[in-house]
Every structure is written in structure tokens, then in C-alpha cells.
């Protein structure tokens, strides 16, 4: 592994809005060093006091102390804003990259989708922040080091041996900190895992809240939550207490070194100002070992978070690090983010699936074909792999064997190929977004209202639309109209139809529709001449099918391409 690999990655992310990020971090380094001045002024004040000089010089020093502190306050007010905005921009860039990995249709950016949404959201929220803290730890340490050198120089001018006696133990403390860092990592990991468990459970409980209420199961569900909460709170307390013990131990040892250097210095004759200088400077040197310790903790934390984020993005390959990419985002005056750009349309003649095998889903050697204008139905009992077959064909599921050919040519990256205008897929339980109906349909593609209205009509949504006062601009979801299951399914169908794709892949599209609506839908699709691959067992659909692919039960997937007469 390369030296400081994590730091380099974070610096690349920090560069996303580098002017803010680096100016802000530089301001912090300066800010750490600035206290040398008020410290020195305070010491001078006490030297004057001990000599019982309280005249003009004393007053001047007093004013200078006030002014220097005020200047620091003003300086960091400017610097901290740059730092926070630059850091937040970098966090946002990392989040966008992780989301892009999860949403990618094939290509090198595409990441496995293996986590529950709740877990993934928790990672998106917390882990980029924790990763970037690594650079903070370095900035803190660097600032403290520069400050420490200044202090050492000032103290050594008074009494070199006292300075040594005060500073050397600090390095011992720093080394000790480094040795116990792994314990911090363990505590942090446990706290994180326990937190994720709570979040995932809450998300499920709230999604199922009506089920829980109707079952009167609130008490039992809360009981399970209590157990998860207890585990999390124990982990958090342990994590926090350990972190604090590290800091406290450092503080104590710093007190000891103050005592030690005062004793050494007392050999000669110190004046009150010099005692002040020793006490106050060494007091602020307490930060040095603590920040060394902080860096150790921070590097561990970085590793934990980096590992968690790595599960959201594609693996690093050939120097391409998906998490650190700089993409167009409007943050802090950047360019607007791009819209989806559809590939060139490649008219479908025939889609052939040959020997497709997904062992984990009981699909073995499945072969069939779909010709232009046909309706091909995949039927079979629950668990026979109907949905999995469709997902495998369009590249949402990895396959263990076989191939999918478009007009005779095998498709290498199915996920990248099977997108509009080639193909559009509708999931069995589709999800819409808390955006307007138009935005839900277009998903960023540039289509005019007529095209959206056509798609809605094709999906038999026209009557529902007529009942919506704001029409296409009706807000959907938590802040607008909540659609019924059937409406959501038809809106999602329209979202696919809007692309007029060469191939429609529909997973049990009519499951929430009444028979009348279902028939209207198929008639319209048929009139539009669509090529369709669908999974369903509904007789109305099966009777219209040009071919039916019958999947067997669990364990034995007989995959004949039984052809039905039209």
C-alpha cells in the first residue's frame, strides 16, 4: 500500500472545491499558531507586574493583548467558513459519487447493490464526513507542531533544560497513543454497527407501521427496539468513554510535564512572567499529544468508514477511484450536473437468451427468444425465478453462465446496454419519487409534455391524470398526492413507455390492476406495436402471448420455450 494512501485520496476529494477547502485548512493551521502572541504578551505583562511597573508599557501590552485576541477571532471567522464550505462540498462530492455508483447502469462506475436502502443511507450520511476528518486530524497536528516548535524556541530562550523536561514527555505520550489506537477502532466499529442495526430496524418498523398497528404488535416491536437500543447505547458509552480516557490520560501526563519543567526551571531564578509563560504554553501544548492520539484514532476511523463506503462504490481499478471523482455539480458555483444521455437507438430484430444460468436463483440453462413486435410471457410458480430471469436479462443480476444477444450479437455489459431507448424495465413493486409527475416520468431526460401525456395515455393513466388539478405538475408522494398501488404501477409503466423503447421488460405489471384496466393496457400496448418481455401468471396476459416460457418450481428449473399458438 502506498504511503498515506488514505490522505492522498481525501486530498483528491478535498480538491473538489479546492480554493475553499485548502484556504480553510490553511487558515486553521495559522490559527493554531496565533496563540503564541497573546501567550507572550501575557508573560510580558506578568514580568512588568512582578517588577511593579504598571505604567505606559503595561497599558500598551494590555491593549495589545486585547487586540491580538480580537484579531484571532476575526481571522478564524473568515477561515472557518471557507473550511466548512470546502469540506461540505467535498463530502457532497463523495456522496454524489457513491450514489452514482449505486445508480449506474453498467460501466466501470457500477457498484454492486447489496445493502438495504436504510443501511446505505446511513453510510452516505456519516461515512464521507468521517473519512474527511482524516485530513482535519493532520491539519490539527500540523498546526500544533508548528505551535510547539514556537513554544520550544521561546522556552528554550529562558531555560533550555526546562524546555526539554517539559516537551520530551509529550513525545512519549504521543508514541503511547499510537500503540493503543486499534482499541479505538474496535469500539468505533461496534458503535457503528449497533447504530446501523437500530436505523435499519426503525426504517423497517416505520415502513410497516400500519401492519404493526393493525396487528397490535407495538409492544413487541418496541421490545425488540429496546434490545437494539440497549446494545447501541452500551457500544456508544464504551466508545465515548474510551476516547475520553485517552484524552484525559494525555492531559494528566501533560500536567506532569508542566510540573517537571517548572521544577527544572526553578533551579535558576524565574520571574512571574516566565512561570506564566511555562504554565500557559505547556498547557496549550496539551493539544500536541492529544492530536497525535487524535490522528491515530482518525486513521482508524478513516479505515472503518472507507471500508463501509467501498461497499457502495465500484472497486478501485487501474487507478480509477470511483469515490474521488470530480463530477459536474452546481455546488459553490460549479456547472450544473448533466442529464441522462441516451445511447444511439439500435432497432430490435430479435433478442436471444442462450443458456442463461443464475445458480442462486434456481435458473439453469434458460433459453428463449423475443422477436420484434412479440409479447413473450415468463410464467411459473412463486419462487421459480421469473423476476430474477428478467433482472438477469437486463443486467440487474449477475449471471453464472449463458449469454444475451441483441440482433445476434452478444451483449457484453448488459446493464449498460439494456437502457432506453433500447430497453425499459418496470419493477414488480415500482417506486416513484417525491417530485412532480412530469419529473417522475422524464427522470431528467428531455421530453416535452406531449410525449409524457402520450406515455400516460398508453399506460391507461389518462383518467387518473384528468382528476389531478395540477396535471403533470402534480406533486407525488409524501408532499403531494399519494398514489394507490395500481396508480403507482401505471405511472411507473408510463415512465418506461415514455422512451418508446425497442424492448419493454415488465415484471408482473398488472398485479395491482383490475382486469378491465389490465385489458385496456394490453390493447393499447399491442396497438402501439411494442415488443414486450413480461413475467406474469395472469390468464389475460398469457392468452395474448406469442410465446410462453414456463419456469419450473424451486430446485428444478425446466426451461422449455413452449410456443403457444396465437
Amino acid at each position, binding site marked *: 500500500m502506498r504511503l498515506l494512501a488514505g490522505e492522498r485520496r481525501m486530498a483528491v476529494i478535498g480538491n473538489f472545491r479546492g480554493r475553499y477547502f485548502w484556504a480553510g485548512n490553511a487558515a486553521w493551521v495559522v490559527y493554531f499558531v496565533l496563540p503564541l502572541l497573546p501567550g507572550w504578551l501575557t508573560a510580558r505583562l*506578568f514580568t512588568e507586574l512582578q517588577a511593579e511597573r504598571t505604567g505606559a508599557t503595561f497599558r500598551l501590552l494590555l491593549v495589545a493583548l486585547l487586540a491580538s485576541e480580537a484579531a484571532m477571532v476575526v481571522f478564524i471567522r473568515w477561515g472557518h467558513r471557507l473550511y466548512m464550505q470546502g469540506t461540505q462540498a467535498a463530502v457532497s462530492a463523495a456522496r454524489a459519487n457513491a*450514489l452514482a455508483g*449505486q445508480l449506474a447502469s453498467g460501466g466501470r462506475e457500477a457498484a454492486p447493490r447489496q445493502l438495504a*436502502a436504510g443501511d446505505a443511507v446511513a453510510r452516505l450520511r456519516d461515512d464521507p464526513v468521517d473519512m474527511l476528518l482524516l485530513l482535519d486530524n493532520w491539519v490539527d497536528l500540523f498546526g500544533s507542531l508548528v505551535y510547539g516548535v514556537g513554544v520550544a524556541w521561546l522556552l528554550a530562550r529562558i531555560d533550555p533544560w526546562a524546555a526539554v523536561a517539559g516537551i520530551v514527555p509529550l513525545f512519549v505520550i504521543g508514541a503511547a497513543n499510537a500503540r493503543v489506537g486499534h482499541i479505538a477502532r474496535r469500539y468505533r466499529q461496534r458503535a457503528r454497527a449497533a447504530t446501523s*442495526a437500530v436505523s435499519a430496524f426503525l426504517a423497517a418498523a416505520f415502513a410497516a*407501521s400500519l401492519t404493526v398497528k393493525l396487528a397490535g404488535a407495538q409492544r413487541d*416491536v418496541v421490545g425488540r427496539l429496546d434490545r437494539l437500543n440497549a446494545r447501541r447505547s452500551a457500544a456508544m*458509552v464504551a466508545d465515548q468513554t474510551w476516547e475520553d480516557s485517552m484524552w484525559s490520560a494525555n492531559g494528566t501526563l501533560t500536567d506532569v510535564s508542566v510540573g517537571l519543567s517548572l521544577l527544572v526551571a526553578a533551579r535558576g531564578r524565574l520571574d512571574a512572567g516566565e512561570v506564566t509563560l511555562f504554565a500557559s504554553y505547556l498547557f496549550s501544548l496539551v493539544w500536541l499529544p492529544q492530536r497525535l492520539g487524535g490522528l491515530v484514532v482518525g486513521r482508524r476511523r478513516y479505515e472503518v468508514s472507507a471500508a463501509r463506503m467501498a461497499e457502495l462504490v465500484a472497486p478501485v481499478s487501474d487507478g480509477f477511484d470511483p469515490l474521488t471523482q470530480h463530477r459536474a455539480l452546481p455546488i459553490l458555483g460549479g456547472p450544473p450536473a448533466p442529464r441522462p444521455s441516451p445511447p444511439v437507438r439500435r432497432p430490435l430484430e430479435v433478442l436471444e437468451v442462450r443458456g442463461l444460468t443464475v445458480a442462486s436463483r434456481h435458473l439453469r440453462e434458460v433459453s428463449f427468444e423475443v422477436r420484434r413486435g412479440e409479447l413473450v410471457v415468463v410464467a411459473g410458480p412463486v419462487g421459480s425465478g421469473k*423476476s430474477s430471469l428478467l433482472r438477469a436479462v437486463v443486467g440487474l443480476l449477475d449471471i453464472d453462465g449463458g449469454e444475451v444477444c441483441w440482433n445476434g450479437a452478444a451483449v457484453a455489459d448488459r446493464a449498460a446496454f439494456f437502457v432506453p431507448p433500447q430497453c425499459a424495465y418496470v419493477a414488480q413493486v415500482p417506486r416513484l419519487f417525491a417530485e412532480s409527475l412530469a419529473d417522475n416520468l422524464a427522470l431528467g431526460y428531455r421530453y416535452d409534455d406531449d410525449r409524457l401525456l402520450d406515455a400516460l395515455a398508453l399506460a391507461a393513466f389518462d383518467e387518473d391524470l384528468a382528476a389531478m388539478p395540477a396535471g403533470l405538475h402534480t406533486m407525488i408522494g409524501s408532499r403531494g398526492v399519494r398514489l394507490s398501488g395500481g396508480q403507482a404501477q401505471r405511472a411507473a409503466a408510463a415512465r418506461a413507455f415514455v422512451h418508446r423503447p425497442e424492448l419493454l421488460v415488465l415484471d408482473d405489471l398488472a398485479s395491482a390492476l383490475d*382486469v378491465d384496466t389490465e385489458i385496456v393496457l394490453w390493447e393499447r400496448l399491442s396497438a402501439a406495436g411494442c415488443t414486450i418481455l413480461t413475467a406474469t401468471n395472469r390468464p389475460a396476459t398469457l392468452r395474448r402471448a406469442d410465446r410462453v416460457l414456463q419456469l419450473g418450481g424451486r430446485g428444478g428449473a425446466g426451461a422449455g420455450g413452449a410456443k403457444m399458438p396465437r
Partner: protein
Amino acid sequence: MSDTIAPAGGPGSTADAAAPWRLVLGLLGRHRAAVAGYGALLAAATALPLLGALLLARFVDLVAAGAGTGRLIPYAAAYAAIGALSAAIGVVVTWRTTSLAWTLTDELRRDLVRHVLEADLAFHRDRTPGELVTRVDADVTAMTQFLSRVVARVVAIVLLGIGAVLVLAFVEWRLAPPLAVGLALVAAATWWQRDSAMAPTVAERTAEAEVMSVGEQYLAAAEEVAALGAGSHGVRRLGERSTGLVDAVGRRVRVQMRVQAVIRIAVVVAEVLMLAVGALLLARGTIGVGAVFLGFRFVMVVRQPLEGLIWRLQEAQGATGAARRVLDLLAEWRAVPSGTATLPAGPLDVVFERATLVYDDEDGTAAALDGLELHLRAGRTVGVVGRTGSGKTSLARLVLRLVAPTSGSVRIGGVATTDIDEAALRARVAAVPQDVQLFPGSVADNVTLFAAVPDGEVIAALRAVGLGPWLDQLPDGIDTQLAAQEAGGAAAAAGLSAGEAQLLALARGLLRRPDVVVLDEATSRVDPHTQAAIAAATATLVAGRTAIIIAHRLETLEVCDDIAVMAGGRLVELGARTELAADPASRYARLLASAAGRERREAS
């Protein structure tokens, strides 16, 4: 949405700064003993730094008087010992603080979850589960941090300040007034600025919640978005919200740093005041340099923890927003209230008497149910049919008391649903929904919804609904863990297809042995291949019970004794299924005929 109770203030409105403190006091009240012990600990933790400052001042006096190393060693050693002790107590303080904070806020979490799980339809229509997770987890965690990092520190600093003035009054009373004045100035500055960053902090939290809401929605729909090649749209949405967040952070920091500036300048003024007064008294010869040093050190003793605190002040402000949202959520009560009546033993009938239901959130005034008159006899199974919008689902909601009738009444076993005790109602009336949600937990947990039920019963219920073969191939049987995935495509990843998830929901219903069952499109995703098993399971579930089955597909209704045909929120036909089917003039027979005819046409 006229039925939503307006929250006490939107984001960024004139927020209630006392909200978190009120909430905190309420939580603390439940644990008086723990809080008292904690107070004693804090007092000890406060005394030590003051003692350390005293020793250091004595050291300065001794050095100024030219004392030798021999006389200085005890002071230096004592100083180091106090440092060590202080650190040890500090760790104990942290431990007690965090565990107290988590204990208190876990109770708040459980109250909130209970509250949310009691709420009904209208409440959930307005929020996504993700939003609620943010309230219950992120916002309450902000409260936890507030308690453990801010409240504890504020108390410690106030104790330190008071202690410093008292000690100085004994040691060198002439310097106590300037110290008191200086610290009072710091306190006043902090008090003055305490709320200024609140509005921008609340705005920042709102902006962050929006970022996460976009993230959650698109992550949950990741497969569909990817399959539609629309990933960049999701990223664009996240980018737009992130831009808002970065701007909100900038505004918050600007205000936050102004607050800090005011407080820190007050501290420096307190230092300068101490030095100036000390210099005056020193010039008159009334006090020595050690006393001035002590006064100065005491300001520093307060300054050090205060420096830490001012960076945490924004957490207090974040907590203020969080606490207000939590209080709003607790104040918002939109469930049909529980009655007190119990239900008679034995099978129950269901009677609709001129039941009218108008959803008060819709723009249209058309009633979802319009004076529905219907008597469902005890122990019989009725199939409810009708087009979308005919009132089938509203009928089910009324029976389940997810809504109360706008006028008229619904009686179960002779008792109006609005009068029935919640526990009694839920124990006797079960629902099997269309969309099935799975929990992260074992198969058994998902069937029993975490209730303690003997394994044998769980297994029997699963076999009864036809999930036997599925159960047999699970590695750990009913103890197999299911991942936290929702039903649908993602359920496949949890080893459970959508159809299987629906069977599991039937098993949930079966296990509860209810007297009234409502199946709302509960078997719509079950295919013909398991139809026989499902029909048997449904027959078992409805046998001897009053059952309402809502279905689009007429073949699902073969288990029914009676058929009710709905149109326009009214009952237009009710009769025994076989009689209606045999009577060609009945609406049901016409529906059957048209469905069959359509299928024939399709087939030809």
C-alpha cells in the same frame, strides 16, 4: 392537506429556544437518584482544577520569594497528582454523562416509536419512513449529544465559575469582584447570543434532511433508476440539494462564528479586567503578584472548558431544532382515539349504518363512502368487488378503524368501532395487506412480529399457507435471518419473492386467530401455481370467522359465502355468491360473464 395539524413553526421560524431544555428537564425528572449522584461527581470534578490553580499561584509566590527547589517539590508533585486525579474523575464523569444521556434519550426514542406506531393513515400519508427515521434517530441523537456534551459542560462551567469566585473571595477578597464581574460578563454574552445561530442551524438541518431524503429515495429505487439509465438524474437531484446544504452551512457558520467572537471577546475582556485591577492593587502594594496570578488563572480555568463549549454551541442549537421537531411529532396525534368498550365473545358481525366517509385532505368533495348500509353476518365470508374508486378500500379502513366514519357508524359485534378499546379491537380484528414489509430479523420474528410464540405454532402457520417447501430449504429453519429488504424485487434478495412475502403475511394473520379478517388484495401477487395452496390457506384463515375479501380478480372470491358489489361509495348488490352467480340478471353474474367473455375474446 387541511387535516394536518400545523406544526408549531416551520423550519427557520421563530423557534422556541427553551424547547430542548424543557425536554431535557422532563427526561431528567424520571431519574432523580441518578442525577443526584451525577451532581456530586460533577462537584468533585469542579473542585480539583481550582485546587490546581491555587497550588500554581503558591508556587509563583514561592519562586518570587526566591524559595529553593526543596520547598518547591511538594507543590509541583501535588500539582501533578491533582492533574492525575482530575483526569480520572473526568473519565468517570464522561462515562456517567454518556450513559445517562443514552438512557434518557433511548426512552425518548421508544416513546416516539410507540407514538408513530399508534398513529393512523393520515399521519403516515404525509411522511416517508426515511423522514421518520431521521426524526427518531438523527434528531434524538442530536438530543443525546446535547445532553452528554453541552448540558454537562454548561453545568460544569457554571460550577467552576461560581467555585472560582468563592475560593478567590477567601484567598484574596479584593480580586473576587473583578473576577465576578468578568465572569458575569462572559455569562451575559453567552446568554445574549444563545439563540442567534438557531434559525440558520435549523435551516442547515432541514437542508441536510433534504439531501438524505433524496439519497434514500433514489437508493431504494436504485435498480429501476439504473435500468432506465437515469442514474445521472438521481445524482443531479442530490447535487441540487447538496448545493442548498453547502450554502446553508455557509450561512450558519457566519452566524455561529459571530456568536463565538462575542463570547471570546468577553473572556478576553474579563482577563484584561483582572490584570488591570490586579495591577492597580499591586501598584498600591495591597496584594502580591501571586494573587494577581491566581485571579488570572481562575479566568483561565473557566476559559479552557468554555473554549471547548463554544464549538459545541451549534450542537445546542441543532438540538433546539431537533427537540422542537421531536416535540411537534409527539404533539401531533392523528389516530382515531381508542374507546373503552370490549367486544362480546364469539364470532362478530359487522354492520355499516349510513356510513359516510369523506377524506378531508382531498380537493374534491365526493364521498369515498356515501351512506353505506351493509350487514356482514358473523362467521360468513364476504367478497367485496367493484371498480377502482368504488369504495372497497375505504370500507376495509372503516372496519379496521384506520379512519372514523364522517357520519353514520360501523358496528362490530354491536359495538361502534369508535367505542372499542384499541387492544380489544386489534386482538379480534386482523388485516392482511397487499404490500408486505419485512423486518431485519428471523423468519419467526417476521411471522410473529416479535411476539413470543412457540416455534411449533409458527411452523404450523407457515405450512398452512403453503410455505412448507420454502421453509424446508432454509438453512436454519424459522431462525434463518432475513435481510432488511422491502417486499417486491428486493425481497428476492432476502430469499423471499413477492408472492412468498404475501403468503408470509397470510401466516401472520393465521397465527393471531382473529374473529374478523380483512384481506385487501392480499393474494394479488400469488400465481395460479400456488393458487390451490392459497385457496386452502385462505379457507383455513376465514373458516368460522367473519371475513372481508377485497379482490380485483373474481376467481379469488370462490371461498366467499356472500358477494357485495360496490359502486360510487354505495352497496349496489349483496347476496349469496352461488345465488348471484346463478342469476344472470345480477351484477355479479354480469361481472363474471364479462370477465369470462373478455378472456375468451383474448384467447381467440
